[in-house]
């Protein structure tokens, strides 16, 4: 009791700030960046699956070029999704958040793995799982800020 009374007195006194800090954080985070890239992964995966074989031998190179471009964009967007997720995981979320979200690490780890799976494969199911994982992280993020922003997709 004496200890808590002393603590209360100490807390009531004016105090200068001492930084238990990390250098250079801008403090601006938003899972929308990850969502846009994850949507692009899904869109490119659908486009790849919808590609048809060239009708004639003359169209062969054009078809290969289109296929290669679609794959390149899919991989690039999956890598960007992973980067955005890692920023949220390692920079925004803090140990304190684990009390509210005990599955936080598992959620991000699985989401990052899904990014890799989407790079390696042309798998619409994995791309949809990735978008669902980003949606879950969107919910955790805004809940941690005391908000309940709606999940809105661009496509």
């Amino acid at each position, binding site marked *: 009791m004496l200890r808590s009374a*002393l*603590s209360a007195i*100490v*807390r009531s*006194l004016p*105090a*200068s*700030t*001492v*930084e*238990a*800090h*990390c*250098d*250079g954080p801008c403090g601006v985070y938003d899972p929308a960046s990850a969502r846009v890239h994850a949507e692009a992964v899904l869109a490119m995966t659908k486009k790849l699956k919808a590609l048809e074989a060239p009708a004639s031998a003359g169209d062969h190179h054009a078809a290969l070029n289109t296929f290669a471009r679609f794959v390149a964009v899919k991989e690039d967007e999956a890598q960007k999704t992973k980067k955005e997720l890692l920023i949220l995981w*390692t920079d925004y979320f*803090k*140990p*304190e958040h684990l*009390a*509210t979200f005990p599955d936080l690490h598992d959620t991000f780890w699985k989401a990052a793995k899904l990014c890799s799976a989407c790079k390696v494969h042309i798998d619409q199911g994995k791309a949809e799982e990735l978008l669902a994982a980003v949606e879950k992280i969107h919910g955790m993020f805004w809940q941690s800020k005391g908000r309940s922003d709606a999940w809105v997709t661009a496509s």
Partner: protein
Amino acid sequence: MQVKGYSMWPTLKPKDRVIVRPLNQHSELPAIGSIIVCIHPQQPSLRVIKRLSSVADNQITILGDCPDASTDSRQWGSISQSCLIGEVVALASTPLKQGS
């Protein structure tokens, strides 16, 4: 002093208050493992709170208890002992919120 940031988590959390014993050049150095306050080696207007890790040749190395949320001697290297300005001697924790 009031703590800001998570680099000393779980020992210290934001808004915790610490009582700091001021040190000067004639003071005996705190023991290794003590929580200390020093001047940020690159931003002299900032005071940082870390744990004293080692002392050698008037240089100290300081580390946060939560490496993922800390910038410290891993990035700065050892810093001058003259940056050391105090040792934490008492803590008044902020009560945890219900449900958090």
